[in-house]
């Protein structure tokens, strides 16, 4: 069976619960999914761990799923997220009603789900809101 070598660092990292991003050693541009070259024209590409934090660029609540596997989860939030490092990825936003996912929402990566072959993939969940300060009289 052919191996997707370009994806290996991402997939290996996912198995360890780490979100890995490809980055150009020349210009610092981060990209996901990985490619053989950087837009700057060089091919000195390395992998770094992402903070896992990002922002939702666009989201769709999908009702008509492509397979039985996904139909069981429908409706689900299919989204494009931009990571802090600059790379973008397609993902699902979980841990919230899909209809409540908004463009601009701050999210963070979670590894909760595996595909049919047992490979973990990162979903994203809303970053927990900071608790409001409780004591009115505290300095």
């Amino acid at each position, binding site marked *: 069976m052919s191996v997707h070598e370009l994806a290996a660092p991402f997939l290996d990292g996912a198995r360890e619960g780490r979100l890995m991003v490809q980055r150009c050693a020349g210009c610092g541009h981060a990209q996901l*999914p990985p490619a053989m070259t950087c837009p700057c024209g060089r091919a000195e590409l390395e992998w770094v761990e992402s903070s896992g934090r990002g922002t939702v660029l666009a989201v*769709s*609540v999908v*009702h008509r799923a492509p397979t039985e596997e996904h139909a069981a989860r429908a409706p689900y939030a299919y989204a494009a997220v931009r990571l802090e490092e600059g790379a973008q990825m*397609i993902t699902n936003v979980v841990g919230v009603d899909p209809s409540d996912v908004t463009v*601009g929402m701050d999210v963070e990566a979670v590894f909760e789900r595996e595909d049919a072959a047992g490979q973990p993939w990162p979903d994203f969940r809303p970053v927990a809101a900071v608790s409001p300060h409780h004591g009115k009289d505290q300095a």
Partner: protein
Amino acid sequence: MTSTARITGVGDARIEKGRLRRGVELGAEAALAAVADAGLALADVDALLVESPDVEQHHMAHLALCDTLGWTPPFALSTGAGGSTPFANVTVATSLLAAGVAERVLVVDYDARRSFRKANRERLGANLPRGGGHASFWEDPYGATGPAKFALNASAHMARYGTTRADLARVTVAARAAGAQRPGAQLREPVTLDDVLSSEPIAEPLHKLDCCLISDFGSAYVVSNVPGDAPGGVEILGLGQHHGGYAVYRTEEYGRAVDVERAAQQAFGQAGLSPGEVDVALVYDSFTITVLLGLEAIGFCGPGEGGAFLRETGLGPSGGLPLNPHGGQLSYSGGHGHFVTEAVRQLRGTAPSGQVPDAEVALCQGMAAGVLSAYTVLLGGTR
């Protein structure tokens, strides 16, 4: 543009409900119609370009078509650019002519998607097969679908500019009004804004009536640079293309079709024309959002102004921007080449319905891979 290439013949297969035919036979019917329309016989054509069908797949569709026609030309090739293949093939055809490889190029697209889905409904449900040629390693784990990809474009545009579902729905209302007038259209009943808004959600904000038809289809056109051929053939004024990639994660900005911008700029530059001089627009309407982003990117209105443009501009034959007078993919057919054949008929003044008065410049905007792969074709009438 100094090309002497002209589109001298067009043909579309007649689709009849209940009569299920193989796609390659629809392609052959359209091919023969286009050749006859050009005043030619097959023996006069020396090159054939065929779009690689998506559902009725064949790794050498150009030769499969030849077998069905009972003819082979000196030059034959399949090309693949998804739904934008007939648009892209104008560039390929004119290049063959300019290089002296051929004098007359027959360009064909066909597929039998509706028949396939009907026959496989139990197995596939409402979806066309997503495996094989449509597999996307980085998107499929997340339940990617065609509509979901375009829904991301709509989501970003709505978030940034306040565009509404009702704005988008106007594209369908206009398309269905046009299709209602057009003999041979797959859907011939008008719909209201409410019909679109209340249709079943597919990938929000896109609902069923935001989505194009699934059809069986066959279309063809002939490009010639033989001076005596079909006097009054439609001129090819400008061509452009630009590509951002295949998968939606290659998108630079989800609420903008930058590749359409660049393709259109290139075509207008070659033609020495501006968007304001377009008399009729044939814009690929895979979804309502495809049209909205396309209209902005072509330059009919500014970025973010698409919603207002759709609210304020008549899209019918006498409106501010006549758009898809045949009904497009939202009403006429989920096929591809009909945007080109309709443009030619409009410029000749022979459209069976929705004729734009005195149409002299037609813009055909192909989009594939979402809105990431763009081909712009500017055509001029010689009446």
